[in-house]
């Protein structure tokens, strides 16, 4: 979309928005694919403008491709029903990594799945799907203890197998295969990205996938801050890590036609659902997620996938098995409805104010103007928007989500040129409501 402007009215530079919104569908895949509320779940995800859905094979209780193809087919079809591109993750195998026969077996399984997909769905479509090799290989708990040298062999064999399966439709182009889906707590996480890019045949890499959660400890655990308030503020302060990491990965892939994808993120990854739920499925989680989205938009990465979409008591998801949304669903929906692919976007908040506020201004077709704003502090905040987007300062609509709205989005006319939020919060000011917003 050529809007012909490179700056907002007050001089904030604008760049094209190219972020694809996405979700993971993993442990609770059955509800998403086959559960009684699946159609409501798909509808909810369509409302989020989900363009990419990460699915698992060989882990996360995913259906077995050989023994239960109908379930796997339904799992993939569910992503297609959402209107998204499947992102299939071949998570791991449990045989010795240095056993050539085991690696060959795994690669054959993966290529057969890709081939089966072309039998089930048009190859012209399947060729555009994403195929991800392994999940968190740098974490022994998750990835099974594989080292990079073994991972490289697995990666290349799987990628070649997928390329063979999709060859009739690729017209000589590379399939969208990628990795390494690195876990972000490990100090040398970026090494895996660098090694993938420098030690694997370039023609076999279509994207780089990395994960980030700011915290895995409960308050007071393993030298973490002992009070919840400190921990929340500390987590919130680290939302900028999304932007910094995205840029670091971007520096490694610059000059190459590869996608930069954050394939897993959320506020907290504690091993107990009851602990992480407090961070991920609360108002705090909604605001942290909104801050992460602004960072993604600022960094210019190609896709993000929150962990997770559907969730049956796992403490992560933005929708429960009955398709009821959490606060993070609402804040993500506000972002995706008012900051759209192809819009021109800018970031008007600079300086010390960024510790308390962050925002993205979006210019769309037909003079649509929106401001997506996040309040990062757990104290009442008030911000005039004249300096952020003058076009919105006088009149428009305000949608806000904070403690005063019980973490639900509430629509009101925008008056007074100021936004007031009661502690952590998210708001949108716009001159054009998205379809259905007024309902």
């Amino acid at each position, binding site marked *: 979309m050529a809007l012909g402007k490179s700056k907002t009215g007050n001089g904030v530079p604008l760049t094209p928005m190219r972020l694809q919104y996405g979700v993971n569908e993993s442990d609770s895949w059955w509800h998403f694919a086959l559960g009684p509320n699946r159609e409501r779940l798909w509808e909810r995800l369509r409302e989020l403008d989900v363009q990419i859905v990460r699915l698992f094979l060989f882990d996360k209780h995913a259906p077995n491709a050989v023994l239960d193809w109908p379930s796997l087919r339904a799992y993939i079809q569910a992503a297609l029903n959402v209107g998204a591109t499947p992102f299939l993750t071949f998570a791991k195998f449990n045989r010795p990594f240095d056993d050539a026969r085991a690696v060959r077996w795994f690669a054959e399984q993966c290529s057969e799945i890709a081939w089966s997909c072309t039998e089930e769905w048009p190859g012209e479509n399947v060729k555009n799907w994403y195929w991800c090799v392994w999940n968190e290989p740098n974490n022994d708990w998750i990835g099974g203890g594989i080292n990079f040298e073994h991972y490289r062999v697995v990666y290349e064999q799987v990628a070649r197998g997928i390329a063979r399966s999709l060859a009739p439709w690729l017209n000589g182009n590379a399939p969208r295969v990628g990795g390494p889906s690195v876990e972000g707590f490990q100090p040398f996480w*970026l*090494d895996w990205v660098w*090694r993938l890019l420098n030690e694997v045949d370039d023609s076999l890499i279509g994207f780089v996938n990395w994960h980030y959660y700011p915290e895995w400890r409960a308050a007071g655990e393993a*030298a973490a*801050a002992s009070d919840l308030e400190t921990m929340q*503020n500390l987590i919130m302060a680290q939302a900028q*890590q999304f932007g910094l990491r995205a*840029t670091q990965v971007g*520096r490694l892939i610059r000059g190459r036609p590869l996608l930069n994808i954050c394939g897993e993120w959320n506020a907290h990854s504690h091993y107990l659902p009851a602990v992480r739920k407090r961070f991920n499925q609360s108002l705090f989680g909604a605001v942290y997620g909104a801050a992460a989205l602004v960072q993604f938009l600022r960094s210019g990465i190609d896709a993000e996938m929150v962990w997770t979409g559907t969730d049956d008591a796992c403490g992560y998801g933005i929708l429960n098995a009955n398709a009821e949304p959490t606060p993070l669903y609402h804040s993500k929906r506000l972002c995706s409805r008012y900051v759209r692919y192809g819009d021109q976007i800018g970031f008007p908040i600079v300086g*010390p104010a960024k510790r308390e506020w962050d925002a993205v201004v979006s210019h769309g077709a037909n003079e649509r103007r929106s401001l997506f704003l996040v309040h990062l502090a757990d104290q009442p905040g008030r911000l005039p928007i004249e300096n952020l987007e003058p076009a919105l300062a006088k009149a428009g609509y305000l949608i806000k989500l904070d403690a005063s709205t019980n973490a639900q989005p509430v629509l009101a006319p925008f008056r007074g040129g100021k936004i007031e939020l009661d502690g952590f919060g998210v708001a949108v000011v716009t001159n054009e409501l998205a379809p259905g917003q007024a309902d």
Partner: protein
Amino acid sequence: MCTRKIQSAGAEKCAPTQWPDRDQRLRLRYGLNLGEHWKNLAFGPLREELITRIRDAGTALVRVFLDPTSDASTDCWRECAALLGAIQQTGATPMIAFSCPVPWNDSAAVQKFSRACGELAGRCRARWGSHAITSWFWSIGDEPNSPWTNEGITFEAYRDIYERVANAIRQELGSLEERPRIGGPCVDGFQPFWFDWIWRFAEEVDNSLIGFVAWNRYGEWREPGGWSAPADPDVFERLLLSRTSEYWSRAKAVASLLEGRGILNICSELNAHSHTDPTISSRFNQSLFGAVYYASSLIDLMRGGADGELLWAGACALGPYGALSARGEPTPTYLAKRLIAQNVRFGDRILFPLDRDPEAQLDAVLGFDDTGRRTAIVIHRSRDAVQVQLDRWPELANLFRASLLCESCVRQERLGDTLSFDGYGIVLLHDEENV
């Protein structure tokens, strides 16, 4: 070794030179650490030569660890005083570093320690005067987040120690128009939650007691093949060099936290490899590779908005870290430091020409001032050979003179329109007869 020739993007595609914003000035103070128990600067036979070397390297800060609880006998104090005097002769400002007391959880020990730190500051004031010591830096804590160096200390305990020591020092500094240059916590950057300590330090300690926030960062601690590090020496080396972007991301993260507070953001220890065994780490720190790693780190610190850097170590009697030997012999890392510090100076306007048009194995910073002086540092971060056309980056055009860093010297050359590297390299580009 392959040679690649990188063509110009074409003059018609080059945007006009974009000078940086007025506010984009170099705020990085160059510095170095004195390695443990290193007293040659004060007492060695080559004292004057070492002082000259440090001064020539544009050194603004010298960090030295002093033990305030050691016997405050005349001899001990005389050694400290001689060292601090020598540091001042280099033209640098001392940064006096105190580790945490042992045991850290004994309130009597903490009280005694904080009193001793204050007394040391008092002796400095008596010797050099209030005016001098208020400009000095006082660093409290040495990697308190590392279980190796400070087993089990909690942030809460560190905060208590910091506030006691900072208050004791501030009393000796007297009334100040500016906040005292006291800081910490000098976190170990290998720990996964290193930022927790920085954030809590800035948020939970009375900001009137904080003049700077300090953090340490080395590229590696493992030997090749150990602890999941790559065994292939070539991969190990290239990977290590790729990690200098961490200096940018960390400086940036800390800068965001500190913006508007009037607190400096200082990388208090840096080098390529922190292994204590010289047979493992010396070749990464004290070689041309080490020079390129360090130069690349400096550019990323500049890019990230850091206010200071302190190489570990500027000088060591023995060991794998020193940029200068006990005899004052320079390593390539020292030569790189001198080349950069002398030519991209504190307060210069700076820009990073390759950010707009990147080339994978190169990085560069351009510095210039109001007198028209214009110099650029270009780094080649690979063992390969490469040739680039300088007019690809308009900011580097018309800089026809080059000073090339070699293993043991800096060689002058006059350039055409291309710049060639045969392996790792650092080049100063300029347009003056003498730099």
